[in-house]
């Protein structure tokens, strides 16, 4: 495999620290992220609105709050930053199976293979950018025949596809943008070199002598003369996601915003692993340390429909009584490789086969699993044990052809013989000795004072007496 056919795209998120703490919030005010620098909280990044009102990166937090009292700032969260980087990798993995992380804020993907697919690279890169934007991430995208160069050019939103153009593009950058050790940087500055081109114009030996041999190695990687060792990124085997809310809340619209973002990630994960969702377990963690609220959403058919899932989550949230603010949401997914594609109904052309499971899901989201069932016959001679509730739509066909009433009482109810006018019978039922439930009964059709036809029996053992067991009606 010749290395020259490779082409790397770099996805760079310039506002990663800011996004990491505010991605899950729909707040439209001035926002910032701060970090502790030399014992003082200083702004690291600010959004456009905060900048307009005078907040600047590098400012101390107290100073910024004095200028802009309604500025909302959160402290930097490196864990969330690496979560977003994983999210970007998942996004990239949908388009390429050669994906690497370039922490802290860039993801690389090999796109040489996609050059001739889907009408070229431009639509692919546009699609990546749009998808990221849909998840609230603004990306810069670089393109270069060498991975190292793609990583560097991504910071400047520069795209080149052949080595000569790459050399020019890199050469035009300021040396400050290279990833250099501080002593190297100082030595280069002391030589009053400004642009990368000036540095590469120097003879190799001269560079090695003045700035160290590893600078040549780095420049070789940048120009694609040496390949950069990259660790391949793989999507996780199972899906689990825990999202911390920027502002703890009980408001269902704020929670739904978080769920929508979480489902974006879940959808990508299912796509790249070619899985269908079967069950989603949701846990809402309380800020005050109170008991978590948890619910499950089971799907009648493996698949994924984001709008439908959001609707189901909304139904579940409506039914919950949240006693305190939620500060984190945890999602775990059960999935299966079995994905049945939606079929169209031959008769009316609507997507019936998909719509029916969707209706069942919606019903069971509100009614709960015990609130929605189908009926199935069970193998037992005693009529009260000859039926069972089963999950909707899973009943086996019934082969029992003995006459039975339309209605069964949940359990036989004692009654007085004198209130019954026996009409037909008896049918003797004698069974159950194998599980210690042996019984001997004679079933009759009888009529009660209201003119209803009842299914009654006289029990001879273990109890004695008359019981109503069902109604014909």
């Amino acid at each position, binding site marked *: 495999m010749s290395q020259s056919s490779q082409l790397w795209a770099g996805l760079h998120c310039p506002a990663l620290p800011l996004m990491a703490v505010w991605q899950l919030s729909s707040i439209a005010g001035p926002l910032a992220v701060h970090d502790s620098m030399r014992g003082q909280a200083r702004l690291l990044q600010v959004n456009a609105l905060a900048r307009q009102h005078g907040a600047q990166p590098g400012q101390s937090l107290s100073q910024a709050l004095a200028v802009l009292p309604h500025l909302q700032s959160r402290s930097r969260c490196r864990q969330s930053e690496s979560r977003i980087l994983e999210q970007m990798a998942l996004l990239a993995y949908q388009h390429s199976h050669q994906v690497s992380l370039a922490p802290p804020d860039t993801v690389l993907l090999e796109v040489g293979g996609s050059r001739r697919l889907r009408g070229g690279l431009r639509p692919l890169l546009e699609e990546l950018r749009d998808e990221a934007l849909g998840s609230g991430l603004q990306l810069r995208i670089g393109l270069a025949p060498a991975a190292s160069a793609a990583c560097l050019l991504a910071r400047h939103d520069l795209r080149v596809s052949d080595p000569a153009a790459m050399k020019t593009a890199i050469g035009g950058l300021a040396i400050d943008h290279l990833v250099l050790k501080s002593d190297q940087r100082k030595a280069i500055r002391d030589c009053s070199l400004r642009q990368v081109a000036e540095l590469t114009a120097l003879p190799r030996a001269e560079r090695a002598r003045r700035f160290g041999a590893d600078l040549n190695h780095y420049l070789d990687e940048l120009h694609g003369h040496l390949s950069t060792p990259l660790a391949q990124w793989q999507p996780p085997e199972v899906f689990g996601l825990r999202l911390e809310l920027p502002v703890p809340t009980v408001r269902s619209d704020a929670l739904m915003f978080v769920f929508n973002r979480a489902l974006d990630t879940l959808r990508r994960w299912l796509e790249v692993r070619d899985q269908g969702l079967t069950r989603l377990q949701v846990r809402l963690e309380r800020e005050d340390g109170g008991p978590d609220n948890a619910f499950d959403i089971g799907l009648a058919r493996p698949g994924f429909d984001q709008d439908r899932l959001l609707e189901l989550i909304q139904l579940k949230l409506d039914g919950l009584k949240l006693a305190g603010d939620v500060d984190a949401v945890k999602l775990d997914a059960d999935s299966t490789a079995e994905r049945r594609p939606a079929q169209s109904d031959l008769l009316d052309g609507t997507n019936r086969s998909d719509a029916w499971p969707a209706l069942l899901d919606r019903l069971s989201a509100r009614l709960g699993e015990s609130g929605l069932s189908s009926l199935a016959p069970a193998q037992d001679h005693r009529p009260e044990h000859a039926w069972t509730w089963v999950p909707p739509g899973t009943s086996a066909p019934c082969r029992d052809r003995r006459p039975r*009433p339309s*209605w069964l009482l949940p359990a036989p109810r004692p009654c007085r013989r004198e209130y019954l006018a026996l009409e037909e*019978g008896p049918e003797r039922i004698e069974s159950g000795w194998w599980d210690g439930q042996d019984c001997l009964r004679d079933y009759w059709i009888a009529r009660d004072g209201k003119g209803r036809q009842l299914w009654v029996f006289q029990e001879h053992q273990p109890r004695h007496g008359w019981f109503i067991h069902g109604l014909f009606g």
Partner: protein
Amino acid sequence: MHSSHSSSSLNKLLSQRPDLWRGRRQPRGRALPSGRADLDRWLPDQGWPSGRLTELMPACLGLGELGLLLPVMAQQTRIARPVILITPPWIPCPQRLARAGVALDQLIVVRDAHHGFWAAEQGLKSGLCGLIMLWPPRGRVSERSVRRLQLAAEKGPAPAFICYRPDQSAPPSLAALRLAIHPGPSLEMLRGGAPHHERFHLGRSNVIAWPGTRRAPRLLSEITRDDPTVSIARSRQSAAQPEPCP
């Protein structure tokens, strides 16, 4: 008394003249065959009103309201149009349903009494269901929920039934049909038909399936002779083994 008698015979006479247009007759809506030809003739639209609400008012629960609908439930579930029974008062017996020809995997029972009306609306609006029957929970039934049910029914082709308890009064509604069920059982049309419509006697055949009196259980397989659903049941049974004696 005399006048009511003469007008009922007049009605009978008039009904024998298909060429005669009668202004009182409501415009005929779509209807689903009930599964019984005599019942279809009696019902105003020659079947159960589809995409509309029918109210059943049995004198007491268990008087025949489920048996009445078994044939149409069988017919709908066999063409994969699911039937939803919402908070029925007792457990519909799966053996009885299956013998009437109902495909059990197309039958859903909603058991959560708090969300019965909501579930019925969802089912009706989806346009996927073959029949929906709701038993409202004890207590007063609000006019608004029945009205909403009626509107939801109009969204799809399914016939919708609401079955009131004897102690519940039906709120004012725009239901297409309102039937009382009397012991017998017999049906009386309270709304939807001509004012002096005669009662319809369901007969025991509709609600019962049992061998002749005091026959030994070994003859149980003969029982379905007078069951209206037997034609479906028998065609299903043809391949099955004869039932072993209990």
